C-alpha cells in the first residue's frame, strides 16, 4: 500500500497493511538542511526539501506543510518572533482594545507573502509525491485565532461579555479561514488540519462550546472543500465528543492526557483518531520507552482501523532526536502490522 492508500483505508474504519504514522515535524527540516529555523522558513523551497528529506529518512506517512501558528496573524499584520530552538512565536496581539475588532480587515490569501510561501511549498511537494503520500495543510480555527489577535484575557472577556463583537470577529475569521483552507487544497493539500485548541473542554466548558466553537466549526468545515481533522493541540476532547462528531470533521486529535481506548470506545467509529504520543515526553524517551509507548497506543486504538499514530500536539519539539523519531516508525512496523497481535 502507498501511504495515501493506508490512510484512506484506516479513515474508512478498515484495517490497512499497517497502522499509518504521521510525524508532524515542522522544524526538524531546518536541522536536516543545516539551516537556522528563520532561514528555513524564509524560503518555500527549503521547507519542501526538508519535508521530502524527512519523508525519506523516517519513512512515515505524510507530508506536513504547516510552518508555524503565528503565520496567520503575520498575514493579518502581526509580528513573528524567531528563536533558534523552537517554533516562531506570535508577538504582541494585533489589537490591545477589544473595540479594535470593528476595524479588523481579513487579509486576502493571494496578497499575502507569508501565506504564499506555504502554498508554494505545497505545490512543490505535490509535484514530488503526487498521490502516493497525503499532504496535510493547517488552518487555525476562526474560534481559536483570536488568542493571537487579541490575547487570551481579552478574548475570554469578548466571549463572555461582548456577543456583538464576538460575532463580528467570527464572521471575519471565518471568511479568512475558509479562503486559506481552500487555497491550500487547491495547491495540492490532501486534507486540512483544523487547529481549534480553545474549543477543547480544557479551555471552555462544553455548554459554552455548543454556542460558540461548535457553531463556528460547523459553518466553517462545511465550506472547506476537502476532508478535515480537528486538533485541540494537547487539550482534552472527551467531554465534547458528541458535539465534535457533528461538526463535519473526519478525524480527531487526541490529548496525551486522555486514554486512547476510552476515546475510541466513545467515538464508536464515528470519527477516526489521531494521536496521542506525548510530544514533549519524546524529548527524554529512551528507545525502549518509545517502543513501549507506541505498542501501548496501537494496542488501544488500532484494532478495526480508524487510527493514525501521531503526537498529541501537532508539532513535535525541535529537541526530539532523530533516533526517537526513527524508533517510533520502526515500532509501528513491529507492533502495528495488521492484524494487531495483543
Amino acid at each position, binding site marked *: 500500500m502507498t501511504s495515501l492508500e493506508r490512510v484512506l483505508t484506516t479513515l474508512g474504519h478498515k484495517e490497512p497493511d499497517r497502522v499509518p504514522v504521521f510525524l508532524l515535524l515542522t522544524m526538524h527540516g531546518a536541522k536536516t538542511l543545516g539551516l537556522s529555523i528563520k532561514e528555513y522558513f524564509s524560503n518555500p523551497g527549503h521547507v519542501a526539501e526538508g519535508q521530502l528529506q524527512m519523508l525519506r529518512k523516517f519513512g512515515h506517512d505524510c507530508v506536513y506543510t504547516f510552518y508555524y501558528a503565528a503565520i496567520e496573524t503575520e498575514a493579518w499584520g502581526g509580528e513573528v518572533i524567531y528563536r533558534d530552538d523552537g*517554533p516562531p512565536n506570535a508577538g504582541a496581539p494585533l489589537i490591545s482594545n477589544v473595540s479594535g475588532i470593528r476595524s479588523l480587515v481579513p487579509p486576502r490569501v493571494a496578497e499575502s507573502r507569508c501565506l504564499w510561501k506555504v502554498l508554494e511549498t505545497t505545490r512543490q511537494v505535490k509535484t514530488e509525491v503526487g498521490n502516493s503520500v497525503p499532504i496535510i495543510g493547517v488552518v487555525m480555527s476562526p474560534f481559536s485565532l483570536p488568542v493571537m489577535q487579541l490575547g487570551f484575557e481579552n478574548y*475570554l472577556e469578548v466571549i463572555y461579555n461582548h456577543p456583538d463583537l464576538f460575532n463580528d470577529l467570527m464572521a471575519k475569521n471565518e471568511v479568512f479561514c475558509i479562503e486559506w483552507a481552500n487555497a491550500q487544497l487547491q495547491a495540492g493539500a490532501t486534507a486540512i488540519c483544523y487547529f481549534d485548541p480553545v474549543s477543547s473542554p*480544557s479551555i*471552555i*466548558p462544553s455548554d*459554552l462550546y455548543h454556542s460558540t466553537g461548535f457553531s463556528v466549526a460547523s459553518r466553517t468545515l462545511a465550506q472547506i472543500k476537502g476532508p478535515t481533522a480537528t486538533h485541540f493541540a*494537547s487539550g482534552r476532547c472527551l467531554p465534547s465528543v458528541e458535539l465534535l462528531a457533528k461538526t463535519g470533521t473526519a478525524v480527531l486529535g487526541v490529548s496525551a492526557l486522555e486514554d486512547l481506548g476510552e476515546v475510541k470506545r466513545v467515538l464508536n467509529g464515528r470519527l477516526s483518531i489521531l494521536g496521542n504520543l506525548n510530544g*514533549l515526553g519524546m524529548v*527524554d524517551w529512551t528507545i525502549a520507552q518509545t517502543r513501549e509507548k507506541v505498542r501501548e497506543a496501537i494496542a488501544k486504538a488500532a484494532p478495526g482501523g480508524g487510527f493514525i499514530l501521531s503526537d498529541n500536539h501537532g508539532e513535535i519539539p525541535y529537541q526530539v532526536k532523530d533516533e526517537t523519531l526513527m524508533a517510533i516508525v520502526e515500532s509501528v512496523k513491529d507492533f502495528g502490522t495488521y492484524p494487531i497481535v495483543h
Partner: protein
Amino acid sequence: MAATLKTLAVDFERALLLLDKQQATSLIAQAMTLGGVQEVIQQLIVQPLTHIGNRWQAGSVALSQVYMSGRICEGLIDDLLPQTTLARRAQPRMAIAVLNDSHALGKRIIYSSLRASGLELQDFGHGVTVDQLVQRTIAQAIDILFVSVLMYPSALSVKAVKQGLGGTRTKVMVGGAPFMLMPDLWRQVDADAFGVNAADALDFINKHTVTQGS
C-alpha cells in the same frame, strides 16, 4: 436549615462556575454576618478557588471558568480588603512573570487567585527576557518568583534565570503546559518547585513562609 460558612461555600463555588457575580457578592455579604474577614476569605474564596483549580487539573472544569472565577474573586476581595489595608497577610515579597512568551492567561489566573486569597504580589508582565527577569527580581529583593511559560524553549530558559539568581535567596516556582506534560522538567531546569494551579502556589508560599520564620 440555617446557612453556615460551609454551606455558603458550596453555593459560592457554584455561583463562580456559573459566572454569577451578583450571587457571589450576595453570598459574601451573607457570610460576613457569620464570620470574620479572614475566615470568610479562607472558607468562601480560598477553598472554592482551590477546589476549582483542582477540578481543572482533573479535567472537570475548563480554564475559562478558572480564569473568570479568579477575576470575580479578585474584585470581591478588593472590596473586602482594600489594597492599603493592614488586613492583607504578612507575606514574603513575591512577583510573577511570563518568561519570553506572550500568552499571559496562566499568569493572570495565579495573580488573581493569590490576590483573591488576600496576598499581594508584583506583576512583572509577559514577554520578559531572562536578563530582565533576573535584574528586576534582584532589584526588588523578591523572595518567591512565579514563572509561567507556554513554549518548551521558554521552559528551558528557566535554567538561565536560576543561574542569574545564584547567590540570592529567591525561590522559583514554575508553571505552564511544558511542565505539566514533562513531569521532571522543573527539576531539569533547576526550579525550586512546579505548580499546576493556585493551590500549589499557596502551598509553596506557606512552606516558604514557615521555613523563613523557623
